[in-house]
């Protein structure tokens, strides 16, 4: 079946709910309305009002409630309507969700998924454009996944729902409906913590994820540069090996991300490459990222987002240094 990313989310939720009675979906406007992006469409009709529930506008209760429900033995998959509304529940992620296993030495766990659309470029209002994966990946005990294709969305979300640990699943809403591809049938799982090489090449390694994958691939394809393009797919735990092996081959690297530069995921990637492959580097590692500013409101967001020419500029700097 041909599907978009948002349809793949829906397909993964349907599959997970069919296979496991313990999977419960809740959040704001997810049941009757099927979610503001229709990611949870038809779940209420198929699985009923015990397992698909509209909650009050209450992010702390959504994330904290999911944590309690997971401790009790269920597998909640909750939606935060936009990633800009997760911060009220940041306390629950830091204080409880990520610590249940650790706090009880494995006696209790919180296997749950918090799904949320993230990122800029959809012409929305303030607080609808953040990419704070770096902040969330900083929380020990939490996993953070960011798919960039429909097939990976289905596979990673399926893996996240089965994962014994809590997973923050960040959905690239800018490309929710812009890519359509054949979805693997049935029970398709993509393991968390494994990057994918999207394009093999020898000249330079370009690492990106989520909504930055299409502009990155476009920049590479249009330039004719023999770049190796890696889709990180999971921010935490991070697949350092795939990146390091590629950099050892190419000797050059560019990291592309939407979130702010300082202390962003790129900083950690560069540190790890320095640890493991410094002597293979032929040039400083380049970063093409969002600025250390607020994500602009919609009239100016295109200044902020890394578009293909900016990404190409970074690649060329890495190649000519």
């Amino acid at each position, binding site marked *: 079946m041909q599907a978009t990313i948002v349809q793949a989310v829906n397909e993964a939720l349907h599959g997970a709910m069919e296979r496991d009675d313990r999977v419960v979906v809740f959040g704001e406007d997810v049941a009757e309305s099927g979610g503001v992006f229709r990611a949870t469409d038809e779940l209420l009709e198929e699985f009923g009002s015990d397992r698909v529930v509209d909650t009050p506008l209450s992010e702390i209760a959504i994330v904290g409630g999911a944590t309690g429900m997971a401790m009790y033995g269920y597998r909640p998959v909750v939606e935060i309507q936009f990633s800009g509304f997760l911060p009220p529940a940041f306390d*629950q992620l830091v204080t409880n969700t990520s610590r249940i296993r650790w706090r009880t030495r494995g006696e209790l766990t919180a296997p749950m998924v918090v799904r949320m659309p993230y990122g800029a470029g959809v012409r929305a209002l303030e607080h609808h454009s953040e990419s704070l994966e770096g902040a969330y990946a900083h929380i020990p005990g939490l996993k953070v996944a960011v798919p960039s294709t429909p097939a990976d969305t289905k596979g990673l979300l399926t893996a996240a729902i089965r994962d014994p640990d809590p997973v923050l699943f960040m959905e690239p809403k800018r490309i929710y409906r812009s890519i359509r591809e054949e979805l693997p049938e049935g029970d398709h799982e993509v393991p968390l913590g494994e990057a994918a090489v999207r394009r093999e090449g020898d000249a330079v390694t370009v690492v990106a994820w989520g909504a930055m994958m299409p502009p990155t691939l476009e920049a590479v394809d249009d330039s004719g540069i023999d770049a190796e393009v890696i889709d990180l797919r999971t921010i935490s735990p991070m697949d*350092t090996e795939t990146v390091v092996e590629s950099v050892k081959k190419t000797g050059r690297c560019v990291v592309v991300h939407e979130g702010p530069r300082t202390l962003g995921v790129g900083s950690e990637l560069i540190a790890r490459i320095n640890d493991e492959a410094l002597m293979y580097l032929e040039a400083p590692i380049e970063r093409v990222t969002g600025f250390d500013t607020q994500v602009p409101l919609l009239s100016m967001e295109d200044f902020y987002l890394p578009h293909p020419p900016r990404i190409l500029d970074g690649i060329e700097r890495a190649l000519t240094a």
Partner: protein
Amino acid sequence: MSDRESDRRVPSAVGDGGVGLLTQADLSVPTHQIVDPDGSYDPEAVPDLSAEELCDLYRWMVTDRVFSRRMVNIQRRGELGTFGSTRGQEASIIGSAFTLEPQDWLYVGRAWTPMFMRGASMTDMIHFWRGIETAQQSFAKQNSQIAISIGSHVPLVAGLAWGMQLDDADAVATAYIGDGATSTGAAHEGINLAGALSLPALFFCQNNQYAISLNVEEQTGAKTLAQKALAYGIDAIRVDGQDVLAVYDAVQTAKERVKDGKPVFVESVTYRLDAHTTSDDPTRYRDEEEVQEWEAKDPIERYRSFLQSEGLWSRIDHESIVDDIETEFDEALATADELEERRVRELFAHVYDELPSELSRQLEAFEALLEERPEMDDYIEQRPKG
């Protein structure tokens, strides 16, 4: 919405322009009490408990008091990091926890003896205050946890109750909170969710008058904490927290409603006679007179007079109860002191189900460092006594 009773009632206070105001004065919040401070009571109002159970209530209250005293003492001897005494709150803590059944969930703020009532040991609680992780593991085996971050556990309790609702379990999820927690956003959202979804959640609020140094009257414009429940559409009971029978009666009544999917908020009016923790100096923010007033409302004394009136006091050997608790504490402390040396590997266990490769690298590098540089031992103080 317009069918609701509250929309039809005409508010009593009327402003100049004929605008009706609904005010706190429209609300009467009674405080449930069975045994009067002077020891008198209506025999008809006494909850239906056996003589043995009535004596158990006494024994557990004394346990709570002795445990707090011993913990404060060992902290002063340098054998605990810190401790939060529960002296003065025994009726509140024991009367409520006496209603718990094994399948119920208990997520507490300031209440330690309920863990013993559920099967955890004093050693576990000493471990907890010594910062040793096995404590919460033991409590978890009894469907119990202690929350440190005030109010943060209220949404978890709503979630646990939601799980019980989905399971159709004959059980109740209970959050113990303090007056301080009622100002937090997490408590608000957790209680509201319970009301919205009719979850089997019970919120037991020990209003001990202080959030560390801030008196409850300065924490909120609300005249009572119980009345906050009504805004969430859930029922409330305000109870004299120095009257163990009233607390038991209130929470037992609440539990029966909660099991029917009607969450209840119980405000138990009590007082923290000791410091917030051993690190706190309450003389900086409250008068000795006020403390003396509450010393006079000692919940154990009041209950003793009830037992005397009931002719049950003769069944209780107070000295031997205290001796038994002291012995139990001595043994628990000796067991806690036997804790083996900790290994850094434990620090990495249980962060995730499987140790991610980056964490393995960090652990291996550190273990190698410990091996190569024995002088590291000079900087790593193992604190088996907290």
